[in-house]
């Protein structure tokens, strides 16, 4: 276990240069944006005298040179200080912490759904390779992969909320009812069904395709022949020998998709009015609150790094060859 940890930490250390590049590049990029925090604020309050504007610029340290602000900015980040949001008039870090649980819940559920059903359908498909169940599942997978999630979400609302009236069209838990305990969990789960399914479907398609390919690949390896020669049943060979090896690419995929899923949640959270990170990113673009946008991007990058760290450890645990030496 200690060995796996040190290995994963070494990988984590190599991501630090990448993180620093990201931060510097983003900071410089935002300098190119038309209008700064003070302009956004002025637009909100409807203008001010020029002496007041100068004072505000001084307050937000906007009158200093770019390089000194960059150093200030990086130094503040080390203390996890993401600055102040001009529009919401709150520290960015507070807002992100408020919004993080909803996004994590949505992503976690979608990932679980995609992973589970992708695995099951992939196994079914590989078992019946090139026969009609395989063809059907593959075609379904291709259609899922090609469906824009925002369109699927809207159609889901039309069918399940407007016509059948089964599921709520938007929101994150019933408002006005102070539910506690189990009732609150069921309530939120109710609201999460549509967003989770629409977010997960694309990833389900990818998992399904990779699982099928991976199973077919592993099935041709020598140890499977040995297992067959030993007289093990098909079921035992699949569960004990093939699956564990076929899972490895699936685990890698979780890490690779963490980022795209965060991006996808921008659209889904906006449609379903879920108070998450993605919705915050969208709002901050619309309202030109660049400080908040930068904070969301930074936290997303950290999140992706953390997920990949966990994936690395899982991978090492599943594949003893990695820690063998």
């Amino acid at each position, binding site marked *: 276990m200690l060995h796996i940890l040190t290995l994963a930490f070494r990988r984590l250390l190599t991501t630090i240069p990448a993180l620093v590049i990201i931060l510097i590049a983003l900071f410089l990029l935002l300098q190119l944006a038309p209008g700064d925090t003070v302009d956004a604020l002025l637009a909100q309050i409807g203008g001010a005298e020029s002496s007041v504007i100068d004072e505000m610029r001084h307050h937000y340290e906007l009158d200093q040179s770019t390089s000194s602000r960059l150093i200030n900015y990086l130094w503040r980040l080390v203390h996890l200080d993401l600055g102040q949001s001009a529009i919401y008039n709150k520290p960015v870090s507070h807002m992100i912490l408020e919004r993080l649980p909803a996004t994590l819940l949505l992503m976690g559920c979608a990932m679980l759904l995609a992973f589970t059903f992708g695995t099951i359908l992939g196994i079914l498909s590989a078992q019946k390779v090139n026969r009609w169940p395989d063809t059907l599942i593959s075609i379904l997978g291709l259609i899922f992969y090609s469906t824009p999630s925002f369109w699927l979400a*809207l159609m889901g609302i039309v069918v399940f909320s407007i016509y059948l009236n089964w599921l709520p069209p938007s929101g994150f838990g019933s408002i006005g009812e102070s539910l506690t305990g189990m009732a609150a969990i069921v309530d939120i789960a109710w609201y999460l069904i549509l967003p989770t399914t629409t977010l997960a479907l694309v990833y389900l398609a990818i998992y399904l395709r990779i699982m099928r390919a991976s199973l077919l690949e592993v099935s041709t390896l020598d140890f499977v022949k040995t297992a067959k020669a030993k007289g093990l049943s098909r079921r035992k060979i699949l569960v004990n020998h093939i699956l564990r090896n076929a899972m490895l690419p699936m685990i890698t995929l979780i890490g690779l998709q963490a980022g795209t899923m965060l991006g996808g949640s921008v659209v889904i959270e906006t449609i379903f009015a879920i108070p998450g990170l993605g919705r915050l990113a969208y709002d*901050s673009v619309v309202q030109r609150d660049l400080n908040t946008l930068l904070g969301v991007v930074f936290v997303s990058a950290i999140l992706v790094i953390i997920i990949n760290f966990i994936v690395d450890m899982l991978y090492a645990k599943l594949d003893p060859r990695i820690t063998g030496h």
Partner: protein
Amino acid sequence: MAILKDYFRSPIARVGTILLLLIIFIALTADWFFPGNPLRLAGRPLQWPFVNPKFILGTDQAGRNIAAQLFHGAKVSLIIGLVSTLIAIIIGVVIGAISGFYSGWIDDILMRLTEAFQILPNFLLLLVGVAVFGSTINIVIIAIGVVSWPPVARLTRAEFLSLRNREFVQAGKTIGMSSTRLMFKEILPNALPPVIMYASVILSTAILMESALAFLNLSDPNISSWGNLVGNGRLVLRQQWYVSAIPGIAILLTVLSASLVGQGINDALNPRLKKR
């Protein structure tokens, strides 16, 4: 020729090719069937499809012809998909080629850069690009290309690493070829097939990203994009759901055709599948 024959043997490739040709046809004939600006007022708003023969697919809440927007949208989607895919491939191939050919510290720096891009969620990066540079169509195309190159760079680098010590490269070195000539004239043609296969994936995601951006009203509002139309239809979703439904199907079919063609090329070029 043998590859073409292999390609058209699979039903997947045949369906994909027919679909793609149909969409290209729609894009090319948009100006002929529906001349003029598709975003102009055409008739009474919110007419259902198949009711008025003048507006076969109905009109949206601003009284714009949905069929016209659909035809012109095909042009927009294909151009956005193709150009941003081209941008992604050029950036990715150049970075991957340099990285794989030289290795050492150049490789280290370029790979850190690639990792940096991969850590950031693409769509969020796209939002930053649009927030900073505005959302005219050119900016959107460039931004989609710029966020999509890292997998291409990784693919190209891996190919270069395995090719750069082959005999034909050694031979080229011995007769004094320049590094650029070796990289782009000798190694690159051999490294390109997997990149070309991957292009259909980039094309699909590029079209999906643009439509999602347009759906959120963050893409160019002056252009008839399918995503825009789905987004506008959201306001009348309760009653006139067809406004959102129709362009969504168009996006689905376009992305599907690109995936099917990509899969077909992949199967035709993959020697291991032939044996089965």
